[in-house]
């Protein structure tokens, strides 16, 4: 989106009248990642260097405050301004994030933007007066953006229908029992959800979509004001936010799954945290690295996390080093996602070794 933005010259007059926005501008303010918001930017002939102009200083400040509060409290900002301001704040926000270039912060920012949109979307699905506006919104967000069909249920008021496959692809990211398909109203290939559930289903996806956009984004240069803000913010990031070096594919499926959940800010059950921490200890990660893994947890508290990891490492209390739970135990806890690479495993720590053995015997 940004790359094409760079080629436009600015024209000050408001060209909204000639635009073909079918969603209201109020919607673009809430969902600045929609394709139409990008279209809007095209139409205004906005230029990146405009961000150095004093009259846009408040936008840069607003975006950087938003990121600061994400670093400090990990919470999104729910204030809502006019669409011109919101769309620009969103854009400046991701520029700053790109300039800071920290994986952890990028993830956190995307998650916060997703949470922000989630809140507005739930509200809109519950209240947006006209059924046609609601349908349009569903179309723009779910179909255009995420390639997912969501329809207002004809049968049940205030419920939405999604395809079983679309549901399953997303719901496995949640560990709560009520998200298991069996605890849903399922009929004829569709799952019926209320507005909160419908929107909750796509949190991880919106997060990933934003992550992907930031990764793809390749601005020709970053304006001085943005770089300045990025440097200030960078200095305030705690040191421990380093990501783990190991390639994820080297981990067993159960560990990968837990890491995926963490990455998109899902709440991990206690048993999964224990598995993750003991596994990482077993393969030689240090406590610092492991604590920083839990950074994305919605209830993250560094002191508590550190205490727990140290406890598992046997550096506290009973001084017993905890072992990685067995595959059987993990299976019973619903944490096992075995693939055929897991054939014959008793404990996840055997994962890499077993793969090797398996190849040698079968690749004759």
């Amino acid at each position, binding site marked *: 989106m940004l790359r094409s933005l760079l080629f436009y010259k600015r024209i000050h007059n408001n060209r909204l009248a000639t635009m073909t926005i079918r969603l209201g501008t109020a919607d673009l303010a809430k969902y600045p990642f929609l394709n139409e918001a990008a279209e809007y930017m095209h139409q205004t002939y906005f230029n990146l260097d405009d961000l150095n102009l004093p009259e846009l200083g408040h936008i840069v400040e607003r975006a950087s405050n938003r990121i600061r509060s994400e670093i400090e409290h990990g919470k999104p900002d729910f204030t809502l301004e006019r669409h011109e301001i919101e769309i620009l704040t969103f854009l400046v926000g991701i520029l700053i994030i790109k300039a800071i270039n920290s994986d952890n912060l990028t993830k956190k920012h995307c998650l916060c933007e997703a949470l922000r949109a989630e809140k507005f979307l739930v509200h809109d699905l519950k209240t947006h007066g006209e059924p046609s506006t609601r349908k349009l919104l569903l179309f723009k967000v779910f179909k255009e953006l995420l390639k997912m069909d969501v329809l207002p249920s004809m049968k049940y008021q205030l*419920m939405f229908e999604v395809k*079983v496959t679309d549901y399953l692809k997303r719901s496995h990211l949640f560990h709560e029992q009520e998200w298991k398909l*069996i605890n849903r109203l*399922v*009929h004829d*290939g569709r799952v019926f959800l209320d507005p909160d559930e419908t929107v909750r289903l796509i949190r991880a996806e919106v997060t990933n979509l934003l992550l992907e956009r930031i990764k793809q984004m390749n601005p020709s240069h970053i304006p001085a004001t943005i770089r300045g803000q990025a440097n200030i913010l960078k200095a305030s990031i705690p040191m421990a936010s380093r990501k783990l070096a190991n390639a994820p594919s080297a981990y067993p499926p159960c560990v990968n799954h837990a890491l995926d959940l963490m990455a998109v800010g899902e709440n991990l059950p206690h048993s999964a945290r224990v598995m993750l921490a003991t596994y990482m200890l077993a393969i030689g990660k240090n406590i610092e690295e492991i604590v920083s893994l839990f950074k994305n947890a919605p209830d993250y508290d560094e002191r508590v996390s550190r205490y727990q990891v140290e406890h598992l490492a046997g550096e506290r209390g009973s001084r017993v080093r905890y072992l990685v739970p067995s595959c059987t135990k993990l299976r019973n806890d*619903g944490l096992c*996602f075995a*693939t055929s690479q897991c054939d014959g495993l008793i404990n996840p720590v055997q994962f890499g070794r077993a*793969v090797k053995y398996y190849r040698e015997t079968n690749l004759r």
Partner: protein
Amino acid sequence: MIPTKTGKDLQMMKAAFREFYFNHGNRIEEPVRIQNREFGLMGFDGVMKRHLKFSSLGRLVASLVLETPSDVFASNAQYDFPVLPISEKGWRGADLIFDIDLKDLDLKCRLSHSYMTCFSCRSCYFSGSEDRCPKCGSNNFAEVMLPCDRCINGLKSEVSKLHRFLASDIGISPEKITTYFSGNNGFHVHVLDESFNDLNSQARADLAAYIMGIGILADVIGVRRDTHNDFRVRFPLGGLDYGWRKRISDKLGISITSERKLTKLVKELGDIEQFRKRVADIAKEMGVRIDSQVTTDVHRVFRMPGTLNSKSGLTKTLCLDLDSFDPFEESCQLSSREVAVEIMPPRLKLRLKGERFSLSEEIVRVPIFIGVYLISKGLAHAV
């Protein structure tokens, strides 16, 4: 576990299998996009060769005739590079499959057609509770079973149940569901609906749990946990019209107007925990007994339709009409050429390919389809 075949047993089985692939290799069903599948050939020595690729059915059949494997598998997944190790194959989705096996059904007729076989001294007994051979004391001793018509009917009704779940709940139209007899003690159900192909194993695990009736909460019919161990009844949005909500509420005789009845029911059972257990039991009872590991594995190599199952010498066969399908007729495709075998159990009755056989502990001449059937189960030996 029945040990791998040796000596004359091995010779006879291999000869029968080679002859089959030579004459009937064209009956093997070619998988969709064969060039993107991984193949696995199990040898009679019990070693599996995986990561194989065949660009056409003809090439596969040629190698079956040449190598005569005991069992032939193709991946349910499609890959960019089927021959590379799993992490480098480039996964492109996998067919959704289900496996229903006799061992999961717990049918009562089992004992009436099970034998205990000793692989050390070759003696054979009617099923008992021994864990070693009463004659030679060896513990190389296993239970083998010849499924009967009741077994097959039990399997069929489980398969029908699966069909109903897939159709009414999951919304898969019947023409996209293909059912096969596995060649031994089970049925395989393949779903030919591409929209399921990209589900990962977690998503498939959730789907499997749905079909098996596992993990249900009392909330689905509106019994919710309140403070402490108390509960309240509030029927869910969307009512009790469909799916598990309907199954459970029908079983309990509940509708959305019977709030008082439901409250009473929970109280009668003790508390919400007891009620949850009751609901879980009902769900498990009403669910389908599939082998969830099979459904969840997106890298599995799975027995190919039209190939022989070395545990029986029967073929994995397409069932066009489940009700009338008779595996002992349609899946028995080895020739009728006569061979001599020694029957091990004192008495043995079976029906295969339209003939009834009543055999006893002696050397007899039988058609090779009978010989292979019994040898594969350790109930006879080639002489």
